[in-house]
């Protein structure tokens, strides 16, 4: 049974249809890259998977671990093991990173039938993971993402992922706004999480992230549909040739 199965998924925001029939199957252990130009629907797909209510699903189905994902609240999706690394992590002044992450981790642990962590357990768990992400421990006491630099925010996302240990991680443009050094730290964090039980969907505009996080499959999303799929070499082709050829309607290509 695939971990994630998306069939003919349609979604809109307001009156604008953005996803126009997505089909995608992701098995445990696989890393799928979703590439495509701006406005193609990549981020919408990521947000729909996480359950953002702003996007209304108008057709199709998403099955996660045999369950109807679209029926689940965002928090239930997270508790079942879905994690979205946000393109724009939200600043939450007044809530410390520590309180937030401990609350999240304990909710998820409780859902999995595990004991909740106390403050000491929690610190032990996060200390190692902060080191991998080269994050300063003082970040724990700061409000969630508030006043973080772009790079710190992205690292914080992957750090959260490392702590929450999802089964399906969706990374939305995690490379945007990162310099090459920060990109390598983030990618190392992601790579450390790769495992046969865990799947990842990596949404990106650029190939450079995919030379650090090497995917098993690459899909090209254009105008709300996956127009081409292939292996990791597809990313290199796209880097060389751009998206232009792929972005026209497939029918139109046929007529020529």
């Amino acid at each position, binding site marked *: 049974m695939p971990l994630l199965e998306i069939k003919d998924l349609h979604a809109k925001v307001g009156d604008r249809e953005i996803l126009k029939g997505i089909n995608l199957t992701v098995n445990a252990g696989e890393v799928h890259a979703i590439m495509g130009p701006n406005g193609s629907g990549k981020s919408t797909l990521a947000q729909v998977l*996480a*359950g*953002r*209510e*702003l996007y209304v699903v108008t057709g199709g189905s998403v099955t996660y671990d045999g369950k109807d994902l679209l029926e689940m*609240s*965002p*928090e239930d*999706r*997270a*508790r079942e093991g879905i*994690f*979205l690394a*946000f393109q724009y*992590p*939200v*600043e*939450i*002044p*007044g*809530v410390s990173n520590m309180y*937030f*992450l401990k*609350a*999240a981790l304990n*909710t*998820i642990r409780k*859902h999995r039938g595990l004991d909740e962590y106390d403050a000491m357990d929690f610190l032990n768990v996060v200390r190692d993971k902060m080191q991998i992400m080269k994050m300063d421990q003082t970040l724990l006491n700061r*409000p*969630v993402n508030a006043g973080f630099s772009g790079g710190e925010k992205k690292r914080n996302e992957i750090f*959260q992922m490392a702590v*929450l240990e999802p089964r399906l991680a969706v990374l939305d443009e995690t490379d945007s706004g990162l310099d090459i050094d920060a990109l390598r730290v983030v990618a190392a964090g992601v790579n450390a999480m790769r495992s046969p039980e865990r799947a990842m969907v990596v949404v990106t505009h650029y190939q450079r992230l995919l030379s650090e996080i090497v995917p098993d499959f690459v899909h090209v999303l254009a105008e709300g549909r996956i127009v081409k799929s292939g292996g990791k070499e597809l990313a290199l082709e796209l880097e060389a040739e751009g998206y232009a050829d792929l972005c026209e309607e497939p029918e139109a290509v046929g007529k020529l």
Partner: protein
Amino acid sequence: MSAVAEQTGAWLEHFMNQAPAAAPWMQSLRDAAFARFAELGFPTTHDEEWRFTNVAAIARTAFTPVAPDTLLVYPESVRKLEPAEAEAHLARHAAFDRNPFVALNTAFLGNVTVLEIPRGIVVETPIEIAYEVPERPDLGPNLAAHPRTLILVGEGAHCTIVETYKGAGAYFTNAVTEIVVGDRAVVDHYKVQQESVTAFHIATLQATIGRSAAFSSHSISLGGALVRNDANATLSTGSDATLNGLYIVNGTQHVDNHTLIDHAMPHGTSHELYKGILDGKAHAVFNGKIIVRQDAQKTDSKQTNKNLVLSDDAVVDTKPELQIFADDVRCTHGATIGQLDGEALFYLQSRGIGKREARRLLTYAFAQDVVDRIKVQSLRDSLERILFEKFHEHAE
């Protein structure tokens, strides 16, 4: 002019039946204050200062005066004075000529709490003043208490004052606190209003701040059916005033915070942050008046009022009121009324935190910066506990 339904007659009767004041000058004050109260009558919503706060329910009720239970905790370095020893200051700061509630309080001057912090003394532990309206069914159904406090802080002295108000059932607290901050003194004042949700609470705080002195007020308003807080500060040369506030209301609670910062002399600074959280059909009013007089050059003043509205039916009226007569000053103000941030809610949910808990967390976070400004650890802890419980029920 008083409306027919006003119970001025009942107030007069209780005024006349009081035991004589402890000193002739106090009796004169009482007489003058009652005369002024009788002239002014209770304010109506036609009065600009009371436009959004209708006190008809107070005006219509025949109250019976009662002395509040008063609990004082203060170290040896603080002197407790008899009211009769405080002629130079008592009722000289909180003017009763314009505010009928201050007049009414002054008309019943009696058990005044007068504390003096001698010059140069640094009082490290907070001075606690707790007022509670007692349950006295034998006196009748509608009790009215007029707690009165005068704090005299000597030159260069430092102190922290925590004033609390509590009670049970339906009653009326009409409080006046005067604080005289000596030159170069540092005073932090906290007021925690936890009246019963069926009580009326009207209170005036008047701080007169000396040269190069620093005064801060933190007004936490949680209880009461109808609440009006006036926090007034008058600055001297180089004074620093901070007025912070947090009000949390639900149901049909009404809370009105009026602040007045009077920059009378040059080089003063003032900072003001009031935050409110409203649920149900609650109504909050904020009016922040800042006067910068002609002599008050180099004034630096900042005012912020932020409101978080959790329901569709809650109402906020917020108004800055700047009167600036000097030309070399910096004054900024800002007010916001908003709901919980949908992006932030989703972010928390996407990490497994349930919607209700996420709302609670964000609501709590909204209040956090005011709570963080509270320097008394025990007060901050108890407030955090209260907020935690309150938002738990709000989120239901």
